[in-house]
């Protein structure tokens, strides 16, 4: 494949003013211009300064990734756009809550695998568990796949939160 056509996945952090409609602006930009969203998380990170941090995992050619960053940067309530994938090493994690309903061997096996993955049991009934697992997207995917034949009934994932390594802020 020609290098300029290669599809790349990038994790982009966006620091925004936490005003009404700001998330709609970001999402509308992606849908309106046909960009992909693989994962998106948002929460206020600075209550005093009313700032929220959006982490978006997106994919596209190098030219499209540049466009996405430029388009995000020109939204009025945006403080900073940072391409974690491009700017150096970073840590990316997501959290999932995984509900498994099973009895007998399957129930025991699910608990054993949860232990291997360092997932915690956060709810338990006679018939079910809810596991809390944190890790990279790949690790969460692997855990969910393993639970599939063991009575998986429901999954809730946060999407990726990411931050650069080292002492520097965004």
């Amino acid at each position, binding site marked *: 494949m020609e290098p300029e056509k290669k599809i790349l996945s990038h994790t982009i952090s966006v620091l925004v003013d936490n005003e009404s*409609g700001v998330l709609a*602006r970001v999402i509308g930009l992606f849908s309106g211009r046909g960009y992909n969203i693989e994962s998106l998380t948002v929460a206020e990170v600075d209550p005093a300064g009313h700032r929220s941090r959006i982490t978006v995992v997106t994919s596209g050619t190098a030219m499209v990734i*540049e*466009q996405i960053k*430029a388009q995000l*940067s020109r939204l009025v309530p945006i403080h900073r756009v940072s391409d974690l994938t491009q700017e150096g090493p970073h840590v990316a994690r997501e959290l999932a809550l995984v509900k498994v309903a099973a009895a007998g061997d399957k129930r025991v096996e699910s608990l054993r695998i949860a232990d291997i993955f360092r997932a915690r049991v956060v709810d338990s009934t006679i018939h079910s568990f809810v596991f809390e697992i944190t890790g990279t997207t790949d690790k969460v995917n692997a855990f969910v796949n393993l639970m599939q034949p063991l009575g998986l009934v429901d999954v809730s994932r946060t999407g990726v939160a990411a931050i650069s390594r080292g002492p520097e802020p965004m």
Partner: protein
Amino acid sequence: MTEMRMSGAELLLKALVDQGVDTVFGYPGGAVLPIYDALFKQNAIRHVLVRHEQGAVHAAEGYARSTGKPGVVLVTSGPGATNAVTGLTDALMDSIPIVCLTGQVATHLIGNDAFQECDTTGITRPCTKHNWLVKSTEDLARTVHEAFYVATNGRPGPVVIDLPKDVQINQGSYTPPGDVRHKTYRPRVDGDDRQIAEAVRLLAHAKRPIFYTGGGIINSGPRAVAALREFARITGVPVTSTLMGLGAYPASDRQWLGMLGMHGMYEANWAMHDCDVMFALGSRFDDRVTGAIALFSPGSKKVHVDIDPSSINKNVAVEIGIVGDAGRIIEAMIAEWKKQGYQIDKAANDEWWRQIDQWRAKNCLAYYKSDKIIKPQYALERLHALTAGRKTYISTEVGQHQMWAAQFMRFDDPNRWMTSGGLGTMGYGLPAAIGCQLGNPDALVIDIAGEASILMNIQELGTACQYRLPVKVFILNNEYMGMVRQWQELLHGGRYSESYSDALPDFVKLAEAFHCVGMRVTDPGDLDRTIKEMIAIDRPVVVDCIVDKAENCYPMVPSGAAHNQMILGDGAGVAAKIEDNGLALV
């Protein structure tokens, strides 16, 4: 000292006055009655009552583009806001600064599907540069100042301020404009010195350079226009421009190649294709300009100057992308050129101009003359000749007449040309002419129209009449949506599906019904007399100029083709040149 308390409506008007606003285009309704009441009690702001909210926004665009000031619009909630959407999108595409004030139902009713409620900020989010819903009267004045800052700084564009009725009625305190340092929006205006030096060095060593300028020069203002002209003069570089940039460089100058793009000049497109260094100055590589991207100017190194970083490398990858204000950057380029003592490479420059003159000799705007039927090109040639030397402003609708106007009305000054470039909005021209005339009371303002487009906002003749605005509407009436008909002829086997303007009104009687003057001309021999009479009448005039129904607009880069695959006026081989992939393009 006690703080001055005022109603939201009064605060709004005070903020507008402090922003230098003297004219507002609007239409009243239930959700803006407090503002209209406040307008009634003052004299600082003139309100211009349009006949449809779309007209209000286009009028504000015409005002803005011809005066260089932001245009202000005031409409009610619900349908008032939704009717403004086309105008807002138009202003967004063409980077026109507009502040649009919309009424909204009272805050406690928002979300209840109240009468004339709509989600205005939601609907206008993708068609504005930014928008605000003001939830407290205390925030109102500050929001207005912020809105003007955002609309006019960086790449200009439309903004919406949504004003719930209770916010207009409640009392609040005033915040003066003061020094705005926006907490997040601070666009870069000065270019990077190292990049500028690199770009100018590239230009100094070019053999076949070209300046491809756009609306960004006009938006940047008179300094940018002056800088562009000087830069071209000292470097000897030929200049072409987009539709939106016409007038920034004088059409009467030898270095002017004419407009480029789909219906641009043969010499401009060939020079773009064959150049070795391209300076894109305040232009954005729009698809009307580039033709087939893969075949676009294959041998050139490209420098792109734009105030919007997202314009750079969006459609065309460039070697040097400089973010900042076009005027300031061109000034810095001139300084760098002089500082380094660069000279025009005379031998290369002469050779380049010899080549350009060969392309020019094709005389690409040539058309078959007739003494029986008015050719649309002839009508505009005469209109241009008979208005030259006056302070003339031209607006257009959208279609063939628009392209002919761009080709035949030759502009020597900026801000004289108002057209819907990006969105291509039929119905733009008449309200834009009205806004232009309000901003330039002594000027001759002509809307060059087609018989189909003009009907899209014909109601604005009422506005022209009410305010005694002597705008001229010059209709090139070929009884077809001409550009649709042309494409159907070229691409769809001459099956003229729904493009015939059937059941047309009598435009003379229609003008008279609006208390305007109506005239009709069918004979080429009567054309000059009619145009002179139109100019002489100090009232709104509609001229129904009956032209050749079958005329096509050339030259033309067929969809999916490259700049060097232009077709000329004889129309030979057009269909053969449009390939299947071209069919899917607009």
